[in-house]
């Protein structure tokens, strides 16, 4: 199923590439959607994070959803281990409950400190593309540098949330020091 999804993705990518001569390169959020999904591959959650063995792995978007339907398209039919994927959207941090990956949209930039504060100690991989979000305590910050998306990872924050981030993910990423705010 997972593979089929991958193939579907590849097919769609191929289609994009085919049409690439005419169509534009994938959009920023298309890439970021895939990144979000890919994080599920490199991060491991404590067992308590899942209610049951086949409980869904939930990817949530906090604030305005910049992905549109892209994120849904990416996770559709995919599984991580025994866990099916589910996409949720929250408008407020208080709504965030059983969530495993949380993308914090730029719309929430002002409240970022509060959000981080609210989620501290919880086993939720926080991802954001807000500038210096990592230093603000978000675990992974997606930074656009010369048309490429780079990662900044706050390892201490992730460790505080009981998450283990694969070293593989750490290697291409920039490690951001634990500046407690």
């Amino acid at each position, binding site marked *: 199923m*997972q593979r089929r999804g*991958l193939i579907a993705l590849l097919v769609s*990518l191929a289609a994009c590439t085919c049409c690439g001569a005419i169509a534009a390169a994938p959009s920023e959020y298309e890439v970021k959607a895939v*990144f979000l999904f890919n994080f599920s591959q490199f991060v491991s959650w404590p067992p308590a994070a899942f209610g049951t063995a086949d409980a869904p792995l939930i990817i949530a978007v906090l604030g305005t959803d910049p992905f549109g339907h892209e994120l849904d398209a990416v996770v559709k039919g995919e599984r*991580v*281990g025994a866990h099916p994927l589910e996409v949720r959207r929250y408008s407020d941090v208080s709504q965030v409950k059983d969530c495993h990956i949380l993308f914090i949209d730029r719309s929430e930039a002002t409240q970022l400190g509060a959000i981080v504060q609210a989620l501290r100690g919880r086993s939720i991989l926080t991802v954001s593309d807000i500038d210096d979000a990592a230093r603000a305590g978000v675990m992974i910050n997606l930074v656009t540098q010369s048309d490429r998306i780079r990662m900044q990872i706050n390892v201490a924050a992730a460790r505080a949330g009981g998450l283990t981030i694969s070293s*593989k993910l750490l*290697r*291409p990423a920039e490690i951001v020091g634990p500046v407690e705010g």
Partner: protein
Amino acid sequence: MRRTGIKRSLMTMLWLTSGVVVLVTAAAFSAYELLSARQLAERNLMTLGEAIASNSTAALAFENADDATETLSALKAEPHIVAAGLYTSSGKLFAQYRPSGGSEPLPATPPRLGYRFEEGSLIGAQPVVQEGRSLGTLYLKSDLGAIYERFRLYGLITLVIMGLSSVVAYLIASRAQRQISRPILALAETARAVSEKHDYSVRAPPAKENELALLTHAFNHMLTRIAEDQGRLQSQLTRLELLRRITRAISERQDLPSIFQVLLRTLEDDLPIDFGCACLKEEDTQTVKLATLGGHGLAFVEALGLQIGDTIPIDQNGLSSSIEGQLVYEPDTREVRFPFPSRFAKAGLCSLVIAPLLVENRVFGMLVCARRSDHAFSSTDCEFLLQLSQHAALAARQAQLHDALQRAYDDLRQSQQAVMQQERLRALGQMASGIAHDINNAISPISLYTDTLLEREPGLSERARGYLVTIQRAIEDVAQTVARMREFYRPREQQLVLARVTMNRLIGEVLDLTRARWSDLPQQRGVVIRLETDLAPNLPEIMGAEGEIRDALTNLVFNAVDAMPEGGTLTLRSREASSKDEEPHREVRVEVCDTGIGMSEETRRRCLEPFYTTKGERGTGLGLAMVYGMVQRHSAELDIRSVIGNGTTVGLSFPVSEASSGVTERASALAMPNRRLALLLVDDDPLLLKSLRDILEADGHLVTAADGGQKGIDAVTGAAQRGAPFDAVITDLGMPYVDGRKVAAAVAAASPETPVILLTGWGKRMLSEDDIPPHVDRVLSKPPKIADLRSALADLVTRPAEVT
């Protein structure tokens, strides 16, 4: 050289074996290496690929090409990677790596997954997977340098090991080789020494190893055997040479003693033996005679108590098996009880071999060899002696044959001479016969007329009568001389005219006749020969030819006198005996004995042969031959006893026969025909014809004379035709043209009743040759005696008259 040959081959063998083992091991090892090196390279690449792929997941997942390139650049540590590339899951080349200076192209799209060798390279396509999700493909291409490097290394190691193992193998091999080859080389060395020097006393040094020790032992044993055989062969050769020498030496000799002499000498010197002698078997007795002693023999003669000529009994001495043809070996004479070997033991000769001398399965003697020490003769010696004795026997046999041949040759030469003599005598006899015939014819008238004158002329003066008697005696002497002359040649046995003979009277006559020889002549030389006669009275008469017996006795007396040149006693003996034959009959035995020189065995054996004489030129060699002829003609027997120096006795035994048939009675000679007869006389000699005619006419017969055969036949046929045949025809035998035989035949044809009297100068000879022609009724010899003539006429003519 042979030495290095076996060493080298052993070395090579051992070395090659270990080399092949090492090579095969190395080859197997290399094959395994090749296989495992490829697998290892593949696995190494796989490991590398997996590591790189694993490290590339994040880079691919988050499209971080720099990171991916950096990850790939870690391949620098692996110098054999010639190209590497990362492809995204969409198949796009995402990142690539080439070593510095490398320009290996990368495929545009990710190749088929998996690892494989392709075109001299190892290619791997490894999926990049994170949490079961394929993120892309890693492509790796490696040259095979690693494998080659590995191989080089292994090759080097193999070479070094092989070199080392060769050295070690060489050391082991040379040591092992020495252990094997040293005893073999020692054997070879010994064998070479033996074959070069022919010295079989060399021995190979004993080896330690079992099999080689066995081999060496066997070799040494073989050498011992060869040395023994060599020795045996050598002694055999020596023996053979000795045998050859002896055989040659004895074959050059022709007489037994010298054969034995050379045989014994050679044996003593060369076998050698201490004593040797040869014995000959005595005929008909169970003894052997010691014939020849060897050169050493004299030293033992006394101790042995044996002399040449001594006889040794066979049975008492245990020689019988030797006489049966077996070789007898007494290894220790001291332990034998028989006297003959005991003598040897006493003489210090302790071992004894007696080899038989055997010819044609008959033992004629034995060869005796002895040695001082006991058990001194080996079986080879015995074998040799047996062989030698066979050769010696053969040579002896040859000598005997040679002797016999020589004797036969002598006999033959003698016979040849005898035949020549006889031929000469025959010619002489024929001549004498012719002369006798002529003389007989010539004296016939003298004899006839003398007889007539003495008979018919009573008026003769005493003186004339005396003269006539002298003439008559002279004529008789002439006639006898002629007769003897004719008897000189006697080609075969005569038909005897037998008469009664009184032996004692005859002996007296002989002694009278020979008195000059046994009495007068010796006395002139001062030699006395005494005569003794021992004559049995009342001897029966025998039937015989007096003259022949007289001649024979005369000859015997002459021989006896000749045998006594120094004088002695001549004895004549007569007696009656009875023969010891199967048919006993009475015999008259006469013996002439002398006390003279006697005869040797040879002379005694040969004395009866014609022309054999011991008297040199004086003797004819016919005397005893004549005696023997007489004896045979009289069915008598002759025996001679003689001892050299003691004299000779010759005995004659005449059978006494009662038969008197065919004997003309003296009385009948006085008979006269009782009537006047018509007679025909046929002769070519007119003198004889006339004298016969005169005498027969004087007897009152009617005589017709015919001077020749043809005239005689005419007269016979004429008389027959007239019917007045003659009462008898008296014809000469030898006449020209028509002889007495033809006359006799004509008489038989014309008047078969008429008897024919044949007169012949060959008278007796014709009788002897059974040559009386047919139709002849009586043969009278010339000169005819009146009495004989009358008697014949009376017999032939009167008898038929008496019958009728």
